[in-house]
């Protein structure tokens, strides 16, 4: 095989990794703070993708309006999931929280099918692409990657530089001590859920550059997102970031060398093996 294909695959892997990192960090943020896994996270992303589709393609508004709508919808969905589903069962057994957000997943998939059928819908964007040294670089991949990286940097600054961001990290370490600092833990949870939802909105906006949306879009990226979070160590933001790029490289390069399906098979095999070797995530030391 021409090595240029491998180089191109590796670059595509990096570009895909940016968006995957955004998905994984959003899910991981919620888990790290609330200790709850939003099984339906990528299904919220799916709804945000529909928002972009309707605003831009159906109603003919400019793309940025669609993006703003998706971000707003994402934040609203994040807050709603917390208030309506998580908050009432926050102190119950983890299995109940999994079942509740799992139920939400089926609800959203069915409801989306009911409203919009199973048609694949995409937003037609006329964007340039470049060819550098025989490697094909489309803007539909470069732009989402660039924005993802900026968003990850933004999230990092938010969590480390602001009071509420630091409080989000602090409340995950000691909820009661944070109440003694004068912060209402319920409010911190709400802000966390809103930020997690906002990231789902942004991920939806960026995914629609390359993918068509349909009611079962969550099945395409959901398992991969969980795998990345677990591989990086649930709740570990740096680990999730690194794991996103490992997984996206395996899928992209494996996809070119063998086949797209084999790329995923290899990724899942690596995941299973790593679960035995490093059950606490790739960045933890072996005990």
């Amino acid at each position, binding site marked *: 095989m021409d090595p240029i294909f491998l180089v191109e695959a590796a670059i595509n892997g990096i570009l895909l990794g940016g968006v995957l990192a955004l998905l994984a960090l959003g899910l991981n943020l919620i888990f790290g703070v609330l200790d709850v896994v939003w099984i339906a996270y990528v299904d919220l992303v799916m709804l945000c993708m529909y928002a972009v589709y309707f605003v831009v393609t159906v109603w003919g508004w400019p793309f940025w309006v669609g993006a703003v709508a998706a971000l707003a919808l994402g934040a609203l969905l994040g807050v709603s999931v917390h208030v309506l589903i998580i908050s009432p069962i926050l102190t119950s057994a983890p299995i109940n929280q999994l079942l509740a957000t799992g139920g939400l997943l089926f609800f959203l998939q069915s409801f989306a099918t009911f409203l919009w059928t199973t048609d694949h819908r995409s937003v037609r964007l006329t964007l340039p692409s470049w060819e550098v040294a025989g490697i094909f670089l489309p803007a539909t991949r470069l732009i989402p990657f660039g924005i993802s990286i900026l968003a990850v940097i933004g999230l990092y600054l938010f969590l480390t530089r602001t009071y509420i961001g*630091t409080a989000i990290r602090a409340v995950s*370490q*000691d909820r009661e*001590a*944070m109440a003694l*600092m004068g912060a209402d833990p319920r409010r911190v949870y709400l802000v966390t859920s809103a930020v997690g939802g906002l990231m789902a909105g942004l991920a939806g906006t960026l995914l629609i550059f390359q993918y068509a949306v349909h009611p079962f879009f969550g099945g395409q990226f959901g398992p991969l997102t969980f795998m990345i979070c677990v591989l990086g160590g649930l709740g570990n933001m740096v680990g999730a970031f690194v794991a996103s790029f490992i997984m996206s490289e395996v899928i992209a390069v494996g996809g070119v060398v063998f086949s797209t399906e084999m790329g995923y098979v290899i990724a899942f095999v690596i995941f299973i093996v790593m679960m035995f070797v490093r059950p606490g995530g790739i960045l933890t030391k072996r005990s």
Partner: protein
Amino acid sequence: MLEIGNVTAGYGHFTALWDVSLRVDAGEAVAVVGPNGAGKTTLLRVISGLIPTRAGVLALDGTSLTGMAAHQIVAHGIAHVPEGRRLFPALTVADNLKMGAFLPAARAHHAESLERVYTLFPVLAERHAQRAGSMSGGEQQMLAIGRALMSRPKLILLDEPSMGLAPVMVLRLFDLIRRIREEGYTILVVEQNVRQVLKLVDRAYLLEVGRIRMEGRAAELAEQDFVRKAYMGV
């Protein structure tokens, strides 16, 4: 400043405090001493709102705090240094202090408060970028107290500040608490180290099985035969 009247409180079906009344005046240092399981920690947790009262009243400077949540009580000027310090171990020293100044009123004076805490505990300035969980017990206790000072409280609740510290460190810590007192803070401290704490405070209460058994000047309490025998090992 702080008035507690006939408070009864507990966990589930268990009652830890029975009809407890206590008062702390502005500028005073008051201790609550007593054996393990007497309800000392529960008393502080009731004051800071972590445990609701079943009966009785709580007031600070005439404002009723009864029924308020912990995060609201902090805003009224009570800072609680909890048992076991309860720092945010993965956060740096500076971030822990920043969380102490979380409330808007405290946030506005963040730089000023930080300078005061760093003057009081120079070791915290040296270690500002270190993770709180990686410091020694004594340094962690200083950070816990510093974090409480960051909220610019009127009253500081200290729960077993000497717990788990080496004897030398205990003496140093009590010196530091004395200095905090001299800066004009009002202090309510719970301690098992009765001998040391009675040298520090003006007045003390003796709490036994959830009830106030005695109260008086620290010096008077230290003179009592049964206190000396039971708590000071004399």
